[in-house]
C-alpha cells in the first residue's frame, strides 16, 4: 500500500472522511487546528458540511442534532475545549447518539499550555460528563493508528449507539509520519431505524431524548446501556505487549508515551535489564486481563505518563496490589526522553 507523509491531525481528518463522516462541527484550538482546517477544505467539496461553531458548546450541540438524524459526524478539540463540551457529551450518551469525538490533549488545568500532555485521562475515562456514563476511548500511538482507530471509532459508535473518543495528544497531532489508508471499512448504515430523519407518515415517529422522569424508566435505560458497555468490553478491549514473558519489569504506557518507553525498554535490554512493555490501545474499557497476563512473571511495574499519574490508578486496580507499581511522569508540556525513563528503570533494580 502506498505510504505518504502526513500530519497526525490531517491523517485523522482524512480517515474520518473515508469512514463516511459527512459533517464536522468544531471551534479552533491549538494543537488540533489542522483537523478543522482539513475538514473545512475537503468536506464541502464532497457534499458534506463543515461548521466553525461559535464555541465548543455550540459545536457539541450541533453534533447532537446531526447525530440524531443518523448522519456520521465528528467534532474535535483540545483539553480546555473538551471541558466545555462535557455537558453536551453527557446528553449524547443519554440519548444514545453515535458520533466520534477527538481530544488532542494539551497541558492543563485551565488554559495550561499548548504542548503535549496526557493529563485528561481521568476526565476521559471517568467523568466526561455528569451521570452514570462511560464512553469507549481509543488511544493511538502513531499517525497510522490515528487513521485506523478513527475509522474503527465510527463503526463502534454506530454499532453500540454511543459517542466514541479518540484520545491523542499534541505530539501525535503535530508530527508527520508515513501513513496509508486502507480501502476497506464501512461508511455507515444509510438509514438507522432509530434516526429522526423524517417518517413521511409511513412509520411511527422516532424520538431522541435524554429525559426520563419515571425512575424505573431511567434505571432500565441506564442498565441496558451498561449491558452494551459490557459487550464493548468483551469485543473491543485492546492492548499490545512485547517481551513480557521473561521480563522483571513491565513498563505500561499509552499513546505517544508508549513510543518513548519502547525505546527505553530496548536500551534497558541492551544493558541486560529484562524489561517488557505493555500498551493499552483502548483506555476505556481498560485492558485488565491483558495486563494481568503480561505481568504474570513480572516483579515490578512502571507506569509512565505525561501527567502527574492518572492511568497508574487503572494499572493498580487491574493488578489488585499483587505487584508493586511505580510511576514516572512529566508535566507542563515536557515529553519524557528515553534516557530519563531508563534512569528510572535502573533505579528500580
Amino acid at each position: 500500500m502506498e505510504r505518504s507523509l502526513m500530519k497526525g491531525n490531517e491523517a485523522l481528518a482524512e480517515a474520518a472522511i473515508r469512514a463516511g463522516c459527512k459533517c464536522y462541527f468544531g471551534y479552533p484550538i491549538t494543537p488540533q487546528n489542522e483537523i478543522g482546517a482539513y475538514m473545512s477544505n475537503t468536506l464541502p467539496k464532497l457534499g458534506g458540511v463543515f461548521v466553525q461553531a461559535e464555541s465548543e458548546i455550540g459545536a457539541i450541540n450541533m453534533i447532537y442534532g446531526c447525530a440524531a438524524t443518523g448522519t456520521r459526524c465528528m467534532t474535535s478539540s483540545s483539553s480546555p475545549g473538551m471541558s466545555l463540551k462535557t455537558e453536551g457529551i453527557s446528553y449524547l450518551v443519554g440519548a444514545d447518539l453515535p458520533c466520534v469525538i477527538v481530544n488532542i490533549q494539551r497541558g492543563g488545568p485551565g488554559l495550561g499550555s499548548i504542548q503535549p500532555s496526557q493529563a485528561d485521562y481521568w476526565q476521559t475515562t471517568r467523568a466526561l460528563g455528569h451521570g452514570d456514563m462511560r464512553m469507549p476511548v481509543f488511544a493511538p500511538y502513531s499517525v497510522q493508528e490515528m487513521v485506523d482507530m478513527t475509522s474503527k471509532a465510527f463503526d463502534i459508535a454506530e454499532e453500540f449507539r454511543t459517542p466514541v473518543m479518540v484520545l491523542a495528544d499534541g505530539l501525535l497531532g503535530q508530527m508527520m509520519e508515513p501513513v496509508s489508508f486502507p480501502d476497506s471499512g464501512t461508511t455507515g448504515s444509510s438509514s438507522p431505524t432509530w434516526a429522526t430523519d423524517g417518517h413521511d407518515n409511513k412509520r411511527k415517529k422516532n424520538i431522541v431524548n435524554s429525559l426520563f422522569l419515571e425512575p424505573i424508566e431511567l434505571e432500565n435505560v441506564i442498565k441496558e446501556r451498561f449491558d452494551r458497555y459490557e459487550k464493548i468490553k468483551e469485543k473491543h478491549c485492546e492492548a499490545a505487549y512485547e517481551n513480557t514473558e521473561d521480563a522483571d519489569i513491565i513498563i505500561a504506557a499509552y499513546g505517544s508515551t508508549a513510543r518513548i518507553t519502547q525505546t527505553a525498554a530496548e536500551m534497558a535490554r541492551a544493558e541486560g535489564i529484562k524489561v517488557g512493555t505493555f500498551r493499552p490501545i483502548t483506555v476505556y474499557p481498560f485492558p485488565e486481563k491483558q495486563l494481568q497476563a503480561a505481568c504474570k512473571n513480572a516483579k515490578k511495574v512502571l507506569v509512565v505518563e505525561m501527567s502527574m499519574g492518572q492511568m497508574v490508578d487503572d494499572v493498580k486496580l487491574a493488578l489488585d496490589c499483587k505487584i508493586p507499581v511505580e510511576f514516572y511522569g512529566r508535566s507542563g508540556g515536557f515529553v519524557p526522553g528515553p534516557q530519563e525513563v531508563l534512569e528510572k528503570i535502573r533505579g528500580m533494580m
Partner: protein
Amino acid sequence: MKKMNEYLIAGFGGQGILFAGKLLGNIGLIDNKEVTWFPSYGPAMRGGTCNCSVCISDSLIGSPVVDSPDVLIAMNGPSYDKFINAVKKGGKAFIDNSLVDSKYDGSDIDCFYIPATRLAAENDLKGMANIIVLGKVIKETGLATLETVKAALEVSVPAGKANLIELNMKAIEIGMAN
C-alpha cells in the same frame, strides 16, 4: 541497536525550516525508511525561532523529539547558540554563515559553513537558503541521490506550485557545489 539518524533544523520562522524538514522526511520515505517529523509549534509559528526534528530509521521510531541530533542545520545566530552544544559527538553541523557569525572551536563534531542566504540572493533563489544548506548536507553525508531528492521534491511541493521543483533542484545543486 538499530540505525537511526536524527536531524534538527533550526532558524527563523519564514526561512522554510519546516519545509526543509518535510523534504528530508520524504527522502527517507522514498528510501522506504521509517520517518518522523515534529515541529516546534505555537509561538514559534508567529515569528521568532522555529525548529523541526526529523528522524529517519530502519525500524519504528520512539520519540520524534530530537534533543541531541546527529546532524544540526543552524540557519541563524540564536539557533546556533541554542543547539551547537547539543550535537552528538562525531555528529555534523551545517551553518549558514551569512547569518551566523560564530565559529565552533571544538573538534568533537564536524562543522560545515555555507553562506546559504547570500548564495540564494546571488542566484535569484530568494527564500531557498534552506534548500541550499540541504544540498550541502546531502553532499557531506551521502544521504540521498539526486533522483531521490527530485522524487521527494515532487511529493513535498504543493500540487499548484510544480514550477518550484526545478528551482529547488537548482538550490540543491548550488549547495552541493559549495
